[in-house]
């Protein structure tokens, strides 16, 4: 039975990848939307490879026995650091950890804990003018874009507009609260934070997802540290479900 270890392992990893990418939107908790086709293809390939390896293991029959002997000899040749059991690389069993985690209890999206530990993302690098805001009232903005425009836009395109921001709630010790979103470039390991201070509304519990509608309140000189984080005067705060993609593209 143990001979089928590698086949099972390949199929397990493939199934885990497919479970989060093809059969749900869970992959968005870990990586960017653009990776989905790659993930689906990899998942299918891995499951197929598992099947092929299982079939080969089965038909190999007696010949496999000799391979095992060969492997034992090989192990003696270079036992340092290259631990091969009789059924392939032993270190490979570590793959069961992320695979089972994804299959049984997919880890949650990063939230306030990570947001409070990471540095603020200051997207734009200098004061300048921005392209015109899209029409619409209120206009939906990402927190990254809101921050850039609030702090760096010399045309002050946010002035006089009603804006709508969606994110989760984080709080400072002194009671100020923020609508916050994590920005991800590639995978959740590189997350940075974008946030806007919310005034004029009571703070919902930390980590609740909310949509804040309101107007921008200018603070500090453009581009200065005092302008961070940008402030929004809330007209309404509505609780919403966590969006499929919990992160913003950086």
């Amino acid at each position: 039975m143990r001979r089928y270890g590698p086949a099972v392992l390949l199929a397990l990893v493939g199934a885990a990848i497919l479970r989060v990418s093809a059969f749900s939107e869970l992959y968005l908790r870990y990586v960017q939307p653009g990776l989905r086709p790659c993930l689906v293809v990899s998942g299918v390939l891995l499951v197929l490879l598992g099947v092929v390896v299982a079939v080969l293991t089965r038909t190999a029959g007696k010949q496999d026995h000799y391979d095992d002997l060969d492997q034992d000899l090989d192990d003696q040749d270079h036992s340092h650091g290259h631990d091969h059991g009789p059924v392939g690389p032993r270190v490979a069993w570590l793959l069961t950890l992320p695979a089972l985690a994804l299959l049984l209890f997919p880890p949650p999206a990063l939230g306030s804990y990570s947001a409070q530990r990471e540095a603020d993302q200051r997207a734009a690098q200098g004061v300048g003018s921005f392209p015109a805001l899209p029409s619409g009232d209120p206009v939906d903005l990402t927190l990254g874009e809101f921050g850039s425009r609030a702090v760096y836009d010399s045309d002050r395109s946010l002035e006089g507009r009603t804006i709508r921001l969606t994110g989760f709630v984080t709080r400072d010790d002194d009671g100020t609260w923020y609508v916050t979103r994590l920005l991800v470039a590639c995978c959740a390991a590189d997350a940075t934070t974008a946030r806007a201070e919310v005034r004029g509304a009571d703070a919902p519990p930390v980590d609740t997802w909310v949509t804040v509608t309101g107007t921008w309140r200018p603070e500090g000189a453009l581009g200065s540290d005092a302008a961070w984080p940008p402030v929004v005067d809330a007209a309404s705060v509505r609780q919403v479900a966590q969006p499929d993609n919990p992160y913003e593209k950086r």
Partner: protein
Amino acid sequence: MENQRTVADGIRLGLRALVYAVLGGAALIAVVTVVSVLGPMVALDLYTPPVAAWWTVFTAIAVQGVPFLLLGTVVSAAIGAFVPERVFTRLLPRREVLAVPVAGAAGVVLPGCECASVPVAGSLMRRGVAPAAALAFLLSAPAINPVVLVATSVAFPGQPEMVLGRLVASLATAVVMGWLWARFGREEWLRPPKRSGAPAPGGGPRAFVAGLQHDFLHAGGFLVVGAAAAATFAIVVPRSLLEVFTGSAWLSVLLLALLAVVLCVCSEADAFVAASLSGFSPTARLAFMVVGPMVDLKLIALQTGTFGRAFALRFSAATWVVAVAASVLVGWWLL
């Protein structure tokens, strides 16, 4: 006599089975009770925000790595199974000194991040490519391929010198490391990437499947090790802590070069991370992008798996020094 012994044996066997069943059953019941009562309590206690964040970052790195690892192992298994050795001897210059820069520049053609390049370099060596040339390819491929260069230009808009600097510094590091290996490298450090369990070097589809299975599982295991290390660093050391050290130019170069090692960001994304480290000098950020695809915890784990620990530690340490030196020189010249 014979009969009596058989009966006695039978009784003894029965008794032993009974004892095993009782003991094993009792142990099983005890374990199940303890786990089912205490398990949820302990699990809830342990599943604090840092632990949850650790699991998320850990799985994220693994999920992100799998497609690229698979691409790399498919290419490497295909090289091993279908490309005859003479192709490489014909393509690469006979002299090692010339083969190194050619192999380094050939890194342009493998559009993936660093997870893909380790198995490919291993299979190149198996196919008789000089180790120095294969290593130059290993270092340059994840750093200078078009996907990575485009990502860099997107992350640093209006700063083409950053893209050029990255290309030049990465290629220089790869070629210098190849030459250093050709001059000082010793065969015994490099455990030849032999593959046990693979059919004889006959090639063909069967060899392809065997190679693919072995390489993917093996490298995948080490990817998990690297992901765990990176996730641990991400949780233990917040990035905001590092922004404290932005004052000194020298310190910031060394700091970002170390950060690249522990963060293990894929080469396709590290430009965005570098761009976000806005407090640091351009040279320091260049060092981050040059070191990252060549030396990081995930790569050290992968190289340990493919080439052995003696190699991985020496090679990574030397590469780190050369990469920092190259980025400082190129940064001073271009940025």
